[in-house]
């Protein structure tokens, strides 16, 4: 005699959970393809950055300052991340001479392009700030930075009205490529560039800025994550568009998938 056995509820549940568990344990590999798909990154995954930029842009006033700390809060060990000693021969020659021959070139969409030696920059009014450096990797360190406000430098060269971003080109290549796309660079909005805490730092923790932390000159933009704060600055340019520069996303890490808006 044929009997049809209906699966019991318990067995159905077992089946559902076994299938669900298997899908889960198969890993999140099913999201690897979509994570790399250009259309999904551009049209879906990018939405979070757009909302963050809009919402933080709404709440952040030009006068909103990052918290400044006291001497007692300074980290004993300030981690040096990314490049810690650029192997560029020109950079090494400058370093050998204590950066006495270093000239910061400031140009692009400006009325009068200029060059600044470290002595020129030190002769300008200095700002010292003890701030928390937030790495995109999740750690933070607190350091004391001394430098000249970027706004003062930009005032000297006078931006043309069409300038929309400030670009920093660096001595270091964080990735070896046949073209120049492995070179570190960053772009910033004019609001961040003119922010009072945005400085070109030549000093750290009461000493001269050392090579692991970006000598002779590095950027501090205290309301952003660390990767926006270019080290080993070679030149600064005012630009109106970054889509034609390097891989087109406005920075070394931005070209490798990270957010251009790095306030979170």
């Amino acid at each position, binding site marked *: 005699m044929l009997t049809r056995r209906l699966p019991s509820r318990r067995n159905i549940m077992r089946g559902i959970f076994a299938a669900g568990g298997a899908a889960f344990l198969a890993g999140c590999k099913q999201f690897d393809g979509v994570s790399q798909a250009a259309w999904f990154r551009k049209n879906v995954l990018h939405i979070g950055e757009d909302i963050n930029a809009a919402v933080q842009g709404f709440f*952040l006033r030009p006068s909103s300052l990052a918290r400044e700390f006291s001497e007692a809060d300074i980290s004993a060990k300030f981690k040096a991340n990314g490049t810690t000693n650029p192997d560029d021969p020109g950079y090494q020659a400058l370093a050998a001479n204590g950066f006495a021959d270093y000239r910061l070139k400031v140009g692009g969409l400006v009325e009068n392009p200029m060059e600044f030696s470290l002595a020129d920059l030190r002769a300008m009014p200095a700002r010292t700030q003890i701030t928390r450096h937030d790495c995109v990797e999740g750690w933070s360190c607190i350091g004391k930075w001394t430098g000249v406000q970027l706004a003062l430098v930009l005032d000297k060269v006078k931006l043309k009205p069409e300038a929309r971003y400030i670009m920093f080109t660096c001595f270091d290549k964080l990735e070896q490529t046949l073209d120049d796309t492995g070179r570190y660079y960053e772009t910033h909005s004019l609001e961040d560039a003119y922010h009072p805490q945005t400085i070109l730092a030549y000093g750290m923790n009461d000493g001269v800025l050392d090579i692991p932390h970006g000598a002779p000159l590095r950027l501090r933009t205290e309301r952003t994550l660390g990767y926006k704060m270019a080290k080993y600055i070679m030149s600064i340019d005012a630009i109106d568009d970054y889509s034609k520069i390097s891989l087109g996303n406005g920075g070394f890490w931005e070209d490798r998938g990270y957010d251009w808006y790095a306030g979170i």
Partner: protein
Amino acid sequence: MTVADVATDKPLPGGTVLVRRHSGVVRVTHWINVFVLFFLLQSGLQIFNATPALYVGQYADFDHPVMSLTARNTPSGPVGITQIGGAHFDTTGFLGLSKYDGQWAARGFPSWLTIPSYQDLAAGRRWHLLFAWLFAINGAVYLITGLAGGHLWRDLVPSVKDLRGIGPSIVEHARLHFAHVREYNVLQKLAYLGVIVVMLVLIVAGMAMSPGLDSAFPFLTAIFGGRQTARTVHLICAMLIVLFFVVHIVMVLISGVWNNLRSMITGRYAVSAGSETHAD
């Protein structure tokens, strides 16, 4: 319960009655949360893996993490070590050291728990910061309707009488005796209310890690005592939500899985006949 509700309650064989238990908003936000938290957890673990250690304070005291997942070479091969405070556990194969594509790799959480499966902080952040907005919007809809409609006060905040009955309720749960009534019991109320609080703390701790938001709202990190503490609190809250999830699933399974699932899908829950009206 209104009289109209009773009139539509359908008597079932076995002396049970179907009553309306979950509102449409509760059901929809519940399932959206399941979907969103799946992505948030696994992209969050991907982000954690970029620095697989937790610290307390404003900055990271690299030599003294309160918790870390590391890999170490030993004479008998590499091992994965989970450190919590002064305690060290060998978690080879799961935490600190696990296999990726058949190869041993030093990773905080294993590849099958992260989105993407391979190490990619940039993509993990994009998933996380997109789903964080869905989570916040979904949570806001739940909280606003729950506060305005009275669901939170009426169904979740335990009464003094509820709290007095907490001892007997624990005994009943331990004996796996479940009364099928419309109202949540006191342990359910505390668990559901608790997980809402944990999710709110998790969101604020997440926001406190943003240097932009810290500049706009300096109290964000101040309430945690530092960005690294906020990161630690964020992960602890995530683990508490995982714990809630595990207990929740077990309770759903052992206290009448079909009835529970139906009530969260259609809103209708079978109760013992005679218990469909408020006892008080």
